[in-house]
């Protein structure tokens, strides 16, 4: 019985730790870098970087278009 209690308490502790981390991770932004070959790219664009930032989730619920 003691072993079961210890096991359940450990699982609960682990779940709490994962949940706490889950609240922190949204604020650890990762920057992913990729080199992309493009046909027809002008020399003036060579080496330029484009940043993609999406899904700000500003506001609550879907926008007028229905997209969340």
């Amino acid at each position, binding site marked *: 019985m003691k072993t079961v209690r210890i096991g359940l308490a450990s699982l609960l502790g682990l779940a709490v730790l994962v949940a706490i981390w889950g609240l922190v*991770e949204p604020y650890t*932004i990762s920057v992913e870098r990729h080199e992309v070959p493009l046909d027809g790219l002008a020399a003036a664009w060579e080496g330029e970087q484009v*940043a993609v930032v999406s899904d700000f989730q500003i506001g609550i619920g879907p926008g007028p278009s229905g997209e969340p």
Partner: protein
Amino acid sequence: MRVLENEAVPVAPSGEEGVQNDALYVVGIGSYMAGKNRPPVALEEVPEPAARLVVMHNPDAFAGVPAHAAPLAVAGHTHGGQLRLPYAPEWTYLTYVAEARIHADGWIHDYGQAGNRLYVNRGIGFSKLPLRINCPPEITLFTLVNARE
């Protein structure tokens, strides 16, 4: 901020004024969920040889992009699944819902028309639960190079 709904705009390289032949076209596809995605309309004004970046919210819209029209396309929407198991990057709850016909983030292989490539960004927000596990928010930086070099 200008919203591109089935339209394209030429962007001049930094340091140049006005749009010349060396423009990069940014193409915005309309909302898929609202039934307003019209990729052919969005691409109408892009000259055939011009470099372009095709942007959409929902990756499902990518299937309707004509072949060889989007060598670089970017979508979001999935949040990467938000909750993922360590060491199992292919697993997310999205795997088990109807919409999840494709992977949740990164380069998507074997999807869409020939000659097109899609990258799905995990986004920086979250929906429903304010949680992310093993799926950090993402900003993607693409470095552009000429394919013929």
